[in-house]
């Protein structure tokens, strides 16, 4: 099986994926295929909403934790994956 880099490249090379952003736990973009302005904007919003979603999940069931969050807009969809220390964020049309 290939590693993280190859899988990430394959996701990014998909025609319907606009790009990916990897954030650290503070919402700072670590690795992104967008420019830094867009990345930091997405980073700020995404970390807030992920924290909200995670607290909702854990309020309902303290043993659980948030794994994936998909937000579908009219024209786009953001998939936010969150292990305990980082958030991946591919946006596709």
């Amino acid at each position: 099986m290939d590693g993280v880099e190859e899988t990430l490249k394959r996701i990014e090379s998909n025609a319907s994926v606009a790009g990916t952003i990897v954030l650290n736990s503070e919402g700072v973009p670590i690795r992104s295929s967008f420019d830094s302005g867009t990345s930091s904007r997405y980073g700020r919003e995404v970390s807030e909403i992920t924290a909200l979603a995670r607290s909702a999940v854990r309020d309902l069931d303290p043993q659980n934790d948030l794994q994936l969050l998909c937000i579908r807009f009219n024209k786009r969809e953001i998939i936010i994956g969150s292990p305990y220390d980082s958030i991946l964020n591919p946006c596709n049309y």
Partner: protein
Amino acid sequence: TSSQPKKEFVNEEIEETFSKYDLPISFQEPVTQAMLKEILITDTDCVSLLDIPPNVVSVNSDGADIITERNKQYAEACGKRFKIDNYVDRAMQTLKRAAKNKCTQMDLMLKTDAGNMPLFHLSALREAFCFPQTFDMFVISSCSLKDVEAVGTSSNTKLDWELIKTSEKFHYLLVITERIILRSIFHCPLAAYRGLPVKPEEMDQSKRCTEISCSPALECLWVFSCELTRGRTVSCMAWDKNNPDLLAVGYSETDSMNEKPGLVCCWCIINPTWPERIIYCDGAITTLDFSANHPGRLAVGMSDGVIAIYNLQTADIKAPTFSKYVEETVGSFATCISHKDCLFLQDANIYLTCTWEGNIQKRSCSRSYDLLETYSKHSGPANCVTWCPFHPDVFLSCSSDSTIRLWKQDCKSPMLSFTSNHRAVHEVRWSPRQAAVFGAVNDSQLEIWDLNTNFLNPVIVQRAAPGLKMTSLLFASRSDCVMVGDSCGQVTVYKLQNIFTGESSQVK
């Protein structure tokens, strides 16, 4: 005298938390010699939010009895907590929010694991979050120590990324995300494969307008192909008996000048763009099959006479778990092996082999490969033989003399013979779901025959794209689909439409 002091070690300080985007300029400029003339290092004020020191009273003092009495009452109340309605158990979530770093200059703290003992150096660590209990504090401080080591500037991203890359969880999450994305792209073909209806608004614009015809037809659903397989010829395919969504495809070299190692890819229906497992073998693959009894084992036969068994459960497959060189054919996994001799098991005892001369020989396993019967009618080498899944005595054979013949086990000459164009037929297979339907693949086209409808011509003919040769064929057991492998390393999935199941009518 009193009970254990609950030392609420809340040494919190309030301090300005800078947002990342307006760091003071001084942190970003390099420190020059000139600036080092006069430096004044001060501390911000320490504000204590909550500090409850324990009250220690000597046993001999006057108020001691009252205090002991109160302590006892409290201990009782704690014990009765579960029974009294005044107290309700509630789970609390502890969110580990992002740690806020504060830059300080100090020597690195050496930390030792000492269980629940409070750290004595904590006053020197300025962290801007609160410590609820002693042992929790220990855990939190260990994280913050790591951050302190890593120098708290905002450009820590390189280190973070290296750490994240090694995380198993992150990799798993990436795999899931990839599958979600592919699922939404391949939503319609996948639904068609599984036989599920698709809502009209979910289909592409182009597909909505096609008329629905009633004649038998093939609809191309998707193609399994990636850069690794481009240019190779598909030689064999097999379904996993334990997991009907897994397809193993064996590739051989395209021309003998370009000696590439043989390749086996295990594709999952969920992901047509990249195989789940990739195995490189030394020789060109002629056949493969999955084990019915042992999940995850794939037997691969190669043109140089080697049979290797691979364990697919590990992600990284480098070497086979078992490898053996054989001169003659073996029938343990019901696969066919080297040198163009084909072998197909019907029941445990009888099997058929087809040969270069065009004869098909029936042999018995139990009587040490004795020749029971020979069926000869083909004028070219027989390529493939397959038993009918619905009728135990009937089998089909195909050969390079461009004919397909239908035989009955006890009859020496074929019952029926089918030709449609003058090309060598590579493979013929019965449909597992519809009796009297079979498919055949030759260089230039895929043919689906339905014996209930037409003996002379195939009901569906799908021509190969120009420049491509179709080399391999496999029906799907759970779905009305057929997989066709070609000389460019692609496996195309077609859905059979409007072929209706009929009675098994093999009487002649």
